[in-house]
């Protein structure tokens, strides 16, 4: 089995992360130099659940490298509707493309799919599991703003089901980062992620109240508290308001705090924050292009060198 799939941030070493981020910085500095770098290469976009940003940014990244994309379309219009297994789908698609980007609603889908193909496969989100390419652009953004060592990073919102959170938490264990997790008790980090952080010797604290920790943070990574996760609407309303960021909340923050969000946001960051020096989320989203270009460049270059 290939070793260069990107399945989980838990498998990302500091060395591999820095290689991607350095390459992304080079692309950012001179995008024209990469314009024909993978002319003729084809990337398959297999999205089994809706996506806007991730899908568009992989599509754009591939095209800016000179390649093209093939898109399986929606599940409703694909063979999946006829009952085809994921294993069969990716085995067919690997014959069409030089690399595959997969999003799927089931946890472990990317890991399983990678066992059936011999082209690089990128996990673009598997249920509540992992979203490692998002993490690479998150890290790129953090590095641009504050560096990646001697940091306090707060991660707030739905930590239980938030795959971007799980990936980011794993990746940050490679750096000298104090991680603060802020959530309602019912949405705290899942046991397997806490297990991994403990095993990695990460500096971790958990909170239910942002005020406890906000003044010491360099980065505040906000995620949406998902209404649909709560069996009781009142229970949702009770907690959701406590995790909303507005200008008043940020009075207690350091001036150089970066507020990040994987987007889409609903109401967890007030629009008034957009105009402050804290708002980093749109810059973060834009960073998806050079980072995914760098990721694809690495994977496709290795695939070519590997004789494909």
């Amino acid at each position, binding site marked *: 089995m290939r070793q260069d799939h990107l399945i989980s941030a838990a498998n990302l070493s500091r060395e591999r992360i820095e290689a991607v981020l350095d390459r992304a910085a080079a692309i950012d500095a001179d995008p024209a130099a990469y314009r024909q770098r993978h002319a003729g290469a084809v990337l398959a976009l297999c999205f089994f659940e809706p996506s806007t940003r991730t899908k568009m940014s992989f599509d754009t990244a591939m095209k800016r490298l000179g390649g093209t994309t093939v898109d399986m379309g929606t599940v409703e219009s694909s063979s999946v509707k006829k009952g085809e297994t994921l*294993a069969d789908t990716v085995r067919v698609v690997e014959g069409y493309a030089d690399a595959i980007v997969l999003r799927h609603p*089931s*946890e*472990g*889908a990317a*890991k399983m799919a990678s066992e059936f193909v011999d082209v690089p496969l990128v996990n673009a989100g*598997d*249920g*509540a599991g992992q979203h490692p390419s998002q993490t690479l652009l998150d890290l790129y953004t953090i590095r641009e703003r504050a560096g990646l060592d001697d940091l306090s990073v707060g991660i707030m919102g739905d930590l239980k089901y938030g795959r971007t959170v799980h990936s980011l938490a794993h990746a940050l264990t490679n750096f000298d980062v104090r991680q603060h997790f802020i959530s309602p008790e019912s949405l705290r980090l899942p046991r*397997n992620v806490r297990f991994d952080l403990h095993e990695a010797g990460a500096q971790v604290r958990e909170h239910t109240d942002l005020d406890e920790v906000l003044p010491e943070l360099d980065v505040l990574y906000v995620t949406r508290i998902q209404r649909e996760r709560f069996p009781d609407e009142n229970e949702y309303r009770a907690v959701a308001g406590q995790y909303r960021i507005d200008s008043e909340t940020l009075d207690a923050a350091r001036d150089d705090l970066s507020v990040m969000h994987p987007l889409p946001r609903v109401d967890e960051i007030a629009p008034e924050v957009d105009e402050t020096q804290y708002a980093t989320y749109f810059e973060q989203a834009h960073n998806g292009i050079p980072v995914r270009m760098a990721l694809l460049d690495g994977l496709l270059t290795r695939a070519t060198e590997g004789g494909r």
Partner: protein
Amino acid sequence: MSDHELRVSKIRNGTVIDHVAAGQALNVLAILGIDGSEGEGVSIGMNVPSDRLGRKDVVKVEDRELSQSEVEVLSLIAPEASINIIRDYDVVEKSRVDRPDGVVGLLSCPNRNCITNDGEPIASKFTVVDDGVRCAYCDSIIRDGIADHLDVQT
């Protein structure tokens, strides 16, 4: 063997699995895929007194010697178990179980949203961690009640 174990008769050839945690005997048979349909004699002692465990189960399977891989998977639900291979009424080999690095196709992942529960052509795969097992696909950890997730009929 102690008098307590003589509650079920000695066997001539086969395996005695001793020091099984009380209440796990049927799961031991399930994990080994033994249901008597092959014609083998099976004897079970449940909740018999034990110096080491307080109460224990004992399983005796006639005319069958356990393989190393079978012994390994037993360790997940019966970590204190000892395996006695019997030939012509004598114990010819006695060993303790060892925890394996992983098990394949034996347990169902408790995460209903795990890809292994989606009808894909793959077997479940778990790695063994300090005090439980972990799904190699979705990373879910099972610590308690591992036998409840056996992917076999009990």
